[in-house]
């Protein structure tokens, strides 16, 4: 059996989770400081990918990254590589789709964070970076963790935008979700079932891990 789709799915989900982790936290932190009107507008814009159909996201991404589009052709001429139809093209799709989950949960966590704790750190002589990484992040840990897990799960399950931006090439861009679709389309029900079971198993293990982590964290308090 060819395990490439499993490896590729995990790889894409992991890379996009790391990207989304930092982007989402940074955005949540930055937007919290903006004036209300700008905050509301940006909030809508950044959350939009959550409610848009993935095919719409895919189409918009192709508009930006496609080989005949400005960015795509520029990268092609400078770096000699396409932005679409490679395994890492899927990362573009999963990042955009998973970003709102990380951003929104991080924002919620930061908003409920007691600002006095940060101010206490500052008056005690500690740097902004120390306050953020040693106080704010640990205090918002639960929310951040939830956002990260949701982003990873969403990245792992991404199909629509991924199939448009990365396509389906066995051994090159295939992920679990695109493989299931391909096997179903070619009437290979047994093959499809195998990947369906694998997908269910991964998701179940994942959710179990979150539950365990949460109960342990609660007990630690």
């Amino acid at each position: 059996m060819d395990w490439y789709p499993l490896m590729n799915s995990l790889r894409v989900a992991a890379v996009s989770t790391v990207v989304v982790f930092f982007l989402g936290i940074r955005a949540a932190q930055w937007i919290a400081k903006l004036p209300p009107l700008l905050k509301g507008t940006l909030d809508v814009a950044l959350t939009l990918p959550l409610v848009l159909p993935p095919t719409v996201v895919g189409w918009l991404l192709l508009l930006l990254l496609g080989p005949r589009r400005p960015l795509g052709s520029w990268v092609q001429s400078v770096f000699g590589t396409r932005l679409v139809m490679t395994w890492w093209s899927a990362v573009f799709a999963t990042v955009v789709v998973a970003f709102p989950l990380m951003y929104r949960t991080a924002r919620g966590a930061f908003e409920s964070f007691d600002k006095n704790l940060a101010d206490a750190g500052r008056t005690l002589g500690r740097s902004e970076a120390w306050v953020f990484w040693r106080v704010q992040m640990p205090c918002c840990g639960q929310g951040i963790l939830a956002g990260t897990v949701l982003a990873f799960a969403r990245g792992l399950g991404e199909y629509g935008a991924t199939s448009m931006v990365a396509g389906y090439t066995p051994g090159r861009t295939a992920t679990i979700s695109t493989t299931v679709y391909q096997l179903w389309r070619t009437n290979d029900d047994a093959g499809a079932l195998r990947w369906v079971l694998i997908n269910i198993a991964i998701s179940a293990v994942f959710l179990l891990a979150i539950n365990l982590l949460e109960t342990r964290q609660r007990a630690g308090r």
Partner: protein
Amino acid sequence: MRDTALSVDIQKNLGKFRLQVQFEARDERLALLGASGCGKSVTLRCVAGILRPDEGKIVLDGVTLFDSAAKIDLPPQRRHVGYLFQQYALFPNMTVRQNISAAVRDRSAREETTNRLIRQFQLEQSAGRRPGQLSGGQQQRTALARILASEPKALLLDEPFSALDSYLKYQLELELMDVLDRFQGTVLWVSHDRGEVFRNCRRVCVVDQGRSCPVQALSQLFHTPSTEAAARLSGCKNFADAVPQGENVFLPEWNLTLSCGRPVPDRVERVGIRAHFVRPAEGPGENTFPCGVIRVIEDAFTTIVLLRPEDAPSGGPLLRMELEKMAWRAIPEQERLYIRIDPRDLLLFEKEWRDD
């Protein structure tokens, strides 16, 4: 002792009013006394560098912390000002030891300083615990140890006991006094509680609707408060409009003329009378007038009696008298009685300068 350790002169627009605070503190405990929402906490935050004033200047120990004209605005990290937050703001993800050591600026002395403070504040037993597992007293001690670890030049206390019940408050106040007695620099104590201020500070700056009054001695605040707001904060309950008449004042709301025993300045327009200084009298006499009893309220140790002077037009404020329970029980006639106000107990307030 230096004449001035901390000088503050700042303005900040707070939306509903403009904060205009100006005071100078020595190496002393200076109280900022004001009703909630008057801007005293904002002032404290401006000194600490957590909030930024619109204009003005803050100088501590000869170092300019903020100066809008010279575009100086030191970050809180470099102000060396210790801030005791209302709920202490201990880092919940760290142990007592970690909370304290996080504040030691000199890395090479971190271990040693932390150990010394843990011993000094008797936190040995709880050093490994998190703030959520501590009693109120331990939390306060941890917060104070943490502040002292950062070697502050001034301490800012933001209503330290506002959220506590009175017994715990009493104990924590005693502990805090011990710490403050040993502290060399300036202490700014923000409070709305006159008792707390009276027990802990010698001088006070009253803040009313964002405006600071000149710093005064506490005895002055209680005996001769300069403004109605100051009198209110010092616990005075009765106020009425006044018209100066030589050595007397006429109080139209009660239709009374009372002697003040001294010339009354023309600018006087209000009087204040403390409820404890409203005293029952045997019969008619100087500054004595008959009142009807409107209501009697039993407090824990005193009786509060609401009175209406007999000649008062309807709709005026009631006169509040507070006296010992025994003294009230000793009065035979409890529906109508004569009240005497000693001329010395009449607080006179002049028209206030408001340049807005």
